[in-house]
């Protein structure tokens, strides 16, 4: 029973309208980023690009700390991803493949941890890193970020591992592989898409985080793009062209990554939410 054609067309129109409304802020950001200052402050506003310019981007990228902050964001993001995947895969494998006493308690910990607002923990975390001599250090930030990437990584990866038939591993073990051999040769290749999706998710969370870097890193060069973007706002006042160019630059890597793997993320979410 297919819906009548006219109804389908009306729904399509409605769908495009919804997409336009939801997408408008993104469109407006990119449009503003490419506009010369005179056009940005024109009233009534124009909704189409006329004489686009790269001046805003040049200005944003020319700010003192842009490249240092971009580097810092990349180091923190990649470091967080590497550690949380390594540590997370181990735990995910244990959850997906073993029944052991304390499993339930561990799951509760994993799930509860995601609920604690980190902004609430800023001071004790600062004190902890201070004791460890890790304030104003990227390593310190990576360790702290594990708190919010790790639970999610474990949760998502265990869903992906549970979806891999255990018989494949057993067959490999019958054929003479050790447990580790079976894991490396059978589970790991099949887990590839799950690892990619999880790493993008962890990367994005690290990229987006703002409060902790704000408190934990004091050297301007070490701070991340999120701080860079916000500092823009005050020092440039209402230079919306520069700000929107900065915002576009900050969002771009995340959008690209996300578009590349969003199907996997949706699948992981569905598995995680339904299968637990």
């Amino acid at each position, binding site marked *: *029973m297919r819906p009548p054609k006219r109804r389908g067309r009306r729904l399509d129109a*409605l769908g495009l309208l919804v997409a336009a409304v939801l997408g408008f802020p993104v469109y407006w950001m990119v449009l*503003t980023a490419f506009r010369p200052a005179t056009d940005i*402050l024109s009233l009534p506003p124009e909704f189409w690009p006329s004489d686009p310019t790269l001046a805003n981007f040049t200005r944003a990228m020319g700010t003192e700390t842009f490249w240092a902050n971009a580097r810092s964001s990349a180091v923190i993001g990649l470091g967080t991803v590497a550690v949380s995947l390594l540590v997370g895969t181990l735990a995910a494998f244990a959850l997906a*493949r073993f029944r052991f006493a304390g499993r339930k308690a*561990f799951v509760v910990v994993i799930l509860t*941890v995601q609920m604690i607002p980190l902004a609430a923990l800023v001071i004790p975390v600062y004190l902890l890193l201070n004791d460890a001599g890790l304030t104003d250090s990227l390593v310190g930030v990576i360790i702290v970020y594990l708190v919010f990437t790790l639970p999610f990584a474990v949760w998502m990866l265990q869903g992906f591992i549970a979806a891999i*038939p255990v018989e494949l591993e057993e067959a490999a073990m019958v054929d003479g592989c050790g447990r580790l051999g079976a894991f490396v040769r059978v589970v790991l290749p099949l887990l590839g898409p799950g690892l990619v999706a999880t790493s993008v998710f962890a990367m994005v969370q690290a990229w987006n985080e*703002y409060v902790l870097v704000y408190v934990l890193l004091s050297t301007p060069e070490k701070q991340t793009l999120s701080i860079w973007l916000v500092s823009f706002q005050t020092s440039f006042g209402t230079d919306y062209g520069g700000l929107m160019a900065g915002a576009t630059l900050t969002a771009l890597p995340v959008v690209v990554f996300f578009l590349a793997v969003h199907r996997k993320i949706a699948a992981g979410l569905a598995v995680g939410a339904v299968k637990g």
Partner: protein
Amino acid sequence: MSGDPGARRRRPLLPYLLIAPSFLALLAVLGYPLADMVTLSFQDMTRKELFSGEQPPWAGLEQFRTILSDGFFWTVVARTAAFTAVCVTLTMACGLLVALLMRGTSPWVRAVIAAVLVAVWAMPVMVAAAVFRWLFDADYGVVNWLLSRLPGVDLARHNWFTDPWQGFAVITAVVVWGALPFAAVSLHAALTQIPPELEEAARIDGARPAQVFRYVTFPAVKPVFVTVTTLMAIWDFGVFNQIWLMRGGQPEREYYLLGVYSFIESFAVNRYSTGAAIALVTIVLLLGGAVVYLRQMFRLGEVE
């Protein structure tokens, strides 16, 4: 989940070794600060102790007595609860509508909506805050201009943040806009799991669309719906970034939610212990939500 747990009983140590790194990491980075925060809330730590490293004096229940007897604190609690309720309701309602809409559109329109959802989802929160500030700018914001097109509306040079009600409307818009993709994508994923025969059978039996939704469609996506709702509630209750960023790092008292209040007490006023006590109360309030969430997760089965 695994095929036969019985066969694995011979090596009881392995799973513990596998979870040990995660467990230790969480214990060190979260458990320790959490314990520290509890301690802090029973002390009286100021800037002096923070920098000299001296042991702050004990204050007993003083911090809690102060905040709990402060009318402003309860205003902030009520405001946070109301804000959460509004944001969650809007997000889930819009998310469900978008997910349902995506089922009825042609594949290419669905692809367009999905692409937009992913792009919105990927927007870092400080980018979203900056963009919404620009959209709602008093002088050149496109929203003011658009709304002024409506007959009888003049919003030229209107500052949305003078009136906290309007300011919170803008903040709600950012929060809901940013959270909608997660809700819509999860719900859409759940909707695609429903076998079409189920709904078709109901239709053939003469059920009206609203009845099909109520008795067939919604019950099938309910587990995902409840899980996402709970997660949303937990996240929205702890909202900090959007308010902090949209108010340029200096939110007025009318814009305090619990997260902001705790942070300001700690870092602007340097009453670290008061900040810790507020954070602790926040977490206790959240635990109520946590119980619902966990019960739901376990009821969905498989987690044992």
